[in-house]
């Protein structure tokens, strides 16, 4: 029986603030899973800590709510041990780009076949609105005692530089577009990253829904000019078509330059996609030929309750 959207939802009470951008993301994830008809018990949602960390409880697949900054470590471990799983990790920008920045970079280098979605709102919501890594230098959201003294991280640029092979940005109030991006991200063979702009109505009074909608940018004819625009509508080509250095470098540079656009024009869509880099599975297969058919989680380790591993050759080499 085909699964419906409702099948991907749990009945756990959702306690996010009214109007929170997170709702759009969780809806988009559920829609994407339903769209792909993904098997619930072959899928794991991993989450970090913070408001976004609760996401795994709202989705009716395996759900692992991990530790602050560490979601990628748990997720990669599970995916390497059982490559059959569809793995999606989520977390906030403070979680992934502050305390977890080291894991973010290292994950890029590995290119494990899974998806990482950052709920990017510029603040630490659950601890009452401190500045997070994506908040701009000098900005002062409403609960900050003084303006932010740190320069912001560029999530797209950092992902591209770290080796993520699919890098995109979505907007939590464009759920359909976000759903399409999630489908592409999950289908990508390698590590995919989605930076989702997500207004925090409680603590971020700068990057609000109205701000993204460009309410402040009305022209003389009282017409709104949304700050958000879609890369795919501008003829931007994010895909690395040939596995050569010149092509890869061009596409990398192009996405990096694009990622710097902010202010009155904010691009969403796919910035970079490179299928020419081997996913981690392939790298392991090069060392362990039957890794995919017989990964760690599938191996039978005992016979009649005792070891079936034959280490006698190694013992022979140690015997005197």
């Amino acid at each position, binding site marked *: 029986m085909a699964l419906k959207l409702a099948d991907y939802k749990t009945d*756990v009470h959702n306690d996010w603030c009214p109007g929170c951008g997170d709702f759009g993301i969780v809806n988009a994830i559920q829609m994407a899973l339903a769209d792909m008809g993904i098997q619930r018990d072959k899928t794991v949602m991993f989450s970090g800590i913070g408001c976004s960390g609760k996401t795994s409880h709202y989705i009716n697949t395996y759900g692992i709510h991990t530790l602050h900054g560490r979601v990628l470590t*748990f997720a990669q*471990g599970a995916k390497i041990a059982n490559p059959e799983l569809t793995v999606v990790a989520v977390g906030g920008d403070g979680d992934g780009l502050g305390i977890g920045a080291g894991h973010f*970079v290292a994950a890029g280098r590995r290119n494990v076949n899974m998806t990482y979605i950052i709920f990017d709102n510029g603040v630490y919501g659950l601890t009452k609105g401190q500045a997070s890594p994506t908040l701009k230098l000098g900005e002062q959201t409403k609960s900050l005692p003084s303006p932010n003294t740190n320069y912001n991280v560029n999530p797209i640029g950092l992902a591209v530089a770290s080796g993520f092979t699919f890098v995109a940005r979505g907007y939590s109030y464009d759920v359909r577009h976000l759903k399409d991006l999630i489908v592409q991200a999950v289908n990508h063979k390698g590590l995919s990253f989605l930076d989702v702009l997500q207004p925090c109505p409680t603590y971020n009074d700068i990057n609000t829904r109205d701000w993204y909608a460009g309410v402040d940018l009305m022209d003389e004819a009282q017409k709104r000019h949304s700050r958000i625009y879609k890369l795919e509508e501008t003829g931007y080509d994010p895909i690395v078509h040939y596995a050569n250095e010149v092509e890869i470098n061009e596409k990398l540079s192009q996405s990096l330059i694009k990622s710097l656009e902010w202010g009155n024009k904010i691009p969403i869509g796919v910035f970079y996609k490179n299928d020419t880099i081997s996913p981690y599975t392939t790298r392991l297969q090069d060392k362990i030929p039957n890794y995919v058919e017989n990964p760690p989680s599938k191996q039978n380790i005992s016979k009649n309750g005792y*070891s079936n*591993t034959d280490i006698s050759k*190694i013992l022979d080499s140690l015997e005197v």
Partner: protein
Amino acid sequence: MSEVDFTWLIGGPQGSGVESGANIFSRVCAEMGYQVFGKREFYSNIKGEHSYFTLRIADHKIHSNVNDVTLMVSFDAETIFRHFEEVISGGGIIYDSDLEKTKTDDVHTLDAPFKERLHKELESKNKPFTIAGVLEIVKEKGVSLFPVSFKSILTTLAEETENPRLKGLVRMFNVIGVSLSLGLVKMPPDSLQKTIGAIFAKKQVIAELNQQTANYSYNYATAKFDSFSHLLTGIQKEPGTLLVQGHQGTALGKMSCGCRFQPYYPITPASDESVFLESNEILEITNDRPGSTAVIQTEDEIAAMGMTIGGALTGTRSATCTSGPGFALMTEMIGWAGINEVPIVITNYQRSGPSTGLPTRHGQDDLLFSVFAGHGDFPKIVYASGDIEESFYDTGNCFNYAETFQVPVIHLMDKFLASSVITCKRFDTQRIPINRGKLLETVDDDYRRFEFTDDGISPRSRLGIDNGIFWSTGDESDETGHITEDPVLRVKMMDKRMSRLDLILKNIPEEEQVLSFGTADHTIISWGSAKGPILDAIDMLKKEGISIGFIQVKLLHPFPTDIVKSLIKDTKTIIDIEANHSAQFGKLFNQNIQRDIDYFILKYTGRAMTSTEIYDSLKKIIENKANKREILMHGA
């Protein structure tokens, strides 16, 4: 016939082949039927600092090093400066005669505090600050000296074999030293040739070069050296004897018991284990396709622990291996594994702390930290192996405990074990069963991962099996794994998890919790690698008619209070022996047994205990001459 108990010491700058020299010597001795116990000491340095290997060879089972050195071979001056006093009267020193004029000031790696102590001694004995001066002292003591120019050996050899390459090949010094030693003790030369052939089996040219050098040096010693009273001519070899290094016990244990996933971050002295696992990543499986261990080098120890937990959630036996500083980084995650009832094994090769401490030196430093690792209350097991042979079997048990009780297990090893080499019986892979506890292969509908059960342990699903969906969270949770802050449920969940501590004590067989080597009026309590030198010291006292008891506690958390209490009930004097400053095990003992410890024998120089120094302290205790805290200092 008097028994063989011989200690050979080889030293030299790091990177000069001290370890491979010791490897050849120990293999030859083991091949010739002897029991071997060896230990490497080295600086946190890649090249140049002083490194040495002490190998004890005997015709009976030995478990430790002793203070006395029977024969020392050195191809540098520093080894002589640092170790000359250890060589016994009647023992010998083979040294490079080209070094006789070398002054202490010529050796840049001699550190100031050591040089100051040495100068003071030489001054008091009215000797020059040179190798010659030091050698005069040992000669007066009755040590035989065997000078030989290592360079001229190479020169002559180069001429004789018409191989000019040999002339400047100083990296042959180790083989020369080993072969001179074996010639001196009249070890049959075939075993030397055979061993070198086996070690360099994949490099024919190098094997031949080494064999030529060995042959020449061996014959040089038999022809030119005066006779030596200590001989190693070989004895009957026991079949099924292994020569194993410290990290191989736990690594082979992991392979054998089905650990298939090991993420790790490089750290001394733990990484050797992971490297060994990865070097043998493809596994032969009886009547099945090959298996494998995925060994993943991560970006830090936090990631190693996170990946390990991720792997364990898929039902894979997963472990990591680290040392103190790395273990410190893992502690938040150990709590996550605790609240989520995830079976993982953390092999902790302890070293000297605090902080970076003495990074390549020994210490049983992390016991209390392991027992209390992680914030909040959650059940875990802390288990310690006493020697390399034990560590193979204990590794299998640790995974069984982890899966049976669904708790993180911290398996304590240490640097002493890691850098030891021993002979022992071939490991029996069928001795320890594989017990996966309540791990499910199939799941019916209405599954709840944290379901309340009679024994407090819930059936365990794994990521990816049909109908087995569950949630995990570091928050307190309900039976399905969703967050709860309900006070009543909180108490039920907390009680469910913590009840496991009693279950662990009840269900792990007594002999796996505590090993008793007999009790007496004086009984030693100890844990981990202190076992070896304690056993040998007790043996020494036994020969004098003094009987001392010894209880080795292997399960350190939860503490086997009842077993230990009943074992020591008739003991008058309790002696705690361990390699740390604060007597960590003593504190744990005290807390659980509520009995005072009479004496402490402690060592925190960063060097492993020898049986000699434990014997000395025990003797003082018996004679009522000991301090409450006996602090051991042996070892350069």
